[in-house]
């Protein structure tokens, strides 16, 4: 288990805005995802744990090993930390073959065991055929597997991955997810993974830490965060683009219902614990939760009439942008049937509504 409390400040300079990292978290077995926008300090966290940067204060404890303690002046070099690191560009040594890359990592083991271990890893990660080739002569998938194998060969207590799927095409990403699932099953090494790909969080993450401006703004299982974002910023990062100002008009905990006023319309919602009648809040709904239909007759329950401004075509679906900044996703086939339609009803399913 990794326990860390980190604080590091970069003073404001004429050429840089200054930045301060201040956070505390734990990561247990399984995959913990560090998620956040660029410049939120994700890589800095990884570098501090690996020992590339020294925090100003704090404490990093990996199982029973103290890696860093600001107060006690403990700051182990990367060599002594037992953390595997998979770099964004994989950092496979270009002048060595894949086998030599693994051998380099295994060199601290006894000579006989070294060869056995390297061969084992080459088998496990399906690299036996490419073992004699150099990194630039093998495929992207092989490079990726080799960098993970190389990091794991030293039997690290923690595996750090810095945006491992950045710039990969979809099949390679899927391949990577499979490899990492295998790693999780076979090696039992806790993994800390940086990404700013939301899908990746759900593919891999048991736990998720959302970073913003050097702080953790929310943590928990991805599903839970998606379901109940802590604030508007998290909601935005998690892809909930409908953030609509509204007022709570009624609350009924007994029947688990509420009524919220959005513009001139009143919508039914679930009971919102901790809120009061008359609170001005932000209604938060995910684009894929909204149901849109052709405007026919009078609006039904929880339907709002809206005019379509723009339709953005994605691979699997179409994102409809309505007047008033409401965004809804629709299946492509469904959209094809109604594409000439200008006036729509947007239905807000009551159970999908959240307020912030």
């Amino acid at each position, binding site marked *: 288990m990794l326990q860390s409390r980190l604080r590091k400040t970069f003073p404001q300079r004429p050429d840089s805005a200054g930045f301060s990292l201040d956070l505390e978290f734990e990561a247990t077995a399984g995959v913990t995802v560090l998620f956040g926008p660029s410049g939120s300090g994700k890589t800095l966290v990884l570098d501090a744990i*690996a*020992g590339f940067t020294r925090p100003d204060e704090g404490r990093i404890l990996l199982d029973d090993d103290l890696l860093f303690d600001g107060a006690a002046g403990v700051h182990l070099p990367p*060599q002594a930390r037992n953390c595997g*690191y998979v770099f964004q560009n994989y*950092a496979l*040594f270009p*002048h060595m073959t894949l086998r030599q890359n693994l051998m380099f990592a295994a060199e*601290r083991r006894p000579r006989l065991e070294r060869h056995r271990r390297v061969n084992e890893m080459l088998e496990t990660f399906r690299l036996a055929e490419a073992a004699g080739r150099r990194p630039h002569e093998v495929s992207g998938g092989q490079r990726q597997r080799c960098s993970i194998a190389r*990091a794991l060969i*030293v039997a690290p207590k923690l595996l750090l991955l810095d945006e491992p799927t950045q710039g990969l095409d979809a099949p390679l990403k899927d391949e990577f997810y499979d490899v990492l699932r295998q790693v999780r099953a076979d090696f039992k090494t806790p993994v800390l993974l940086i990404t700013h790909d939301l899908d990746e969080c759900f593919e891999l993450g048991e736990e998720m830490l959302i970073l913003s401006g050097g702080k953790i703004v929310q943590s928990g299982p991805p599903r839970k965060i998606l379901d109940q974002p802590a604030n508007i910023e998290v909601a935005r990062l998690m892809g909930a683009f409908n953030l609509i100002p509204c007022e709570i008009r009624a609350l009924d905990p007994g029947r688990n219902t509420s009524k919220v006023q959005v513009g001139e319309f009143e919508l039914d919602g679930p009971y919102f614990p901790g809120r009061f009648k008359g609170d001005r809040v932000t209604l938060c709904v995910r684009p894929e939760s909204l149901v849109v239909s052709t405007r026919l007759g009078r609006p039904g329950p929880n339907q709002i009439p809206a005019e379509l401004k723009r339709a953005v075509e994605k691979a699997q679906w179409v994102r409809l942008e309505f007047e008033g900044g409401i965004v809804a996703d629709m299946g492509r086939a469904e959209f094809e049937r109604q594409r000439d339609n200008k006036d729509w009803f947007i239905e807000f399913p009551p159970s999908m509504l959240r307020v912030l």
Partner: protein
Amino acid sequence: MPIDWFPLWLSLRVAVVSTAVALAFGLWLAYILANREFRFKEVVDGLVTLPLVLPPTVLGYYLLVLIGRASPLGKVWETIFGSPLVFTWKAAVVAALLHSLPLLVKSARAAFESVDRSYERAARTLGASEWRLFWRVTLPLAHRSIFAAAALAFAQSLGDFGVTLMVAGNIPGRTQTVALAIYDAVEAGNGAVARTFVLVISIVTLLILTLANRLNPR
């Protein structure tokens, strides 16, 4: 009149030894400059580069003060080896070093700094000591630039005139390098010897520069 080839052999020997010394000391210094942060780092870099721009007489004077028979260093040398350092071919090596070392340190520092940091970081997380990291990762990745720099340093060491004259003298058969021999030949009106040496040294240097260019990664 048969040509005495001694000056050419001496020059080559001086250049080989000075390049070797420059490699041993220069690589270490360049690695420190490229990887460590310390106060006066740029001052050290400047001191190493200084010989490239100072006039040869100034350098020669410094060297005489530094390794002359009266200086502490010169005395230490004399007690250990039994003979003075100045006015021997070894002094010519020191003179040549002043040209080869700065070139080597400058290029090697740039070469080390151009190695992607993530390779070194990766090696560290894999438990490699700084020593192993240097020999197995950084140096192999920078080796082409460093060979090129060494070739340039070698070519530079071949051609020194002023500093060699001041600290090693111009003793025919003992410290007379090719550059000095050419000067003497011209002074004595010995055109054939001068022409031969000029031609040979030009060809050798051109060959080395071509080699350096081919080694340098584009």
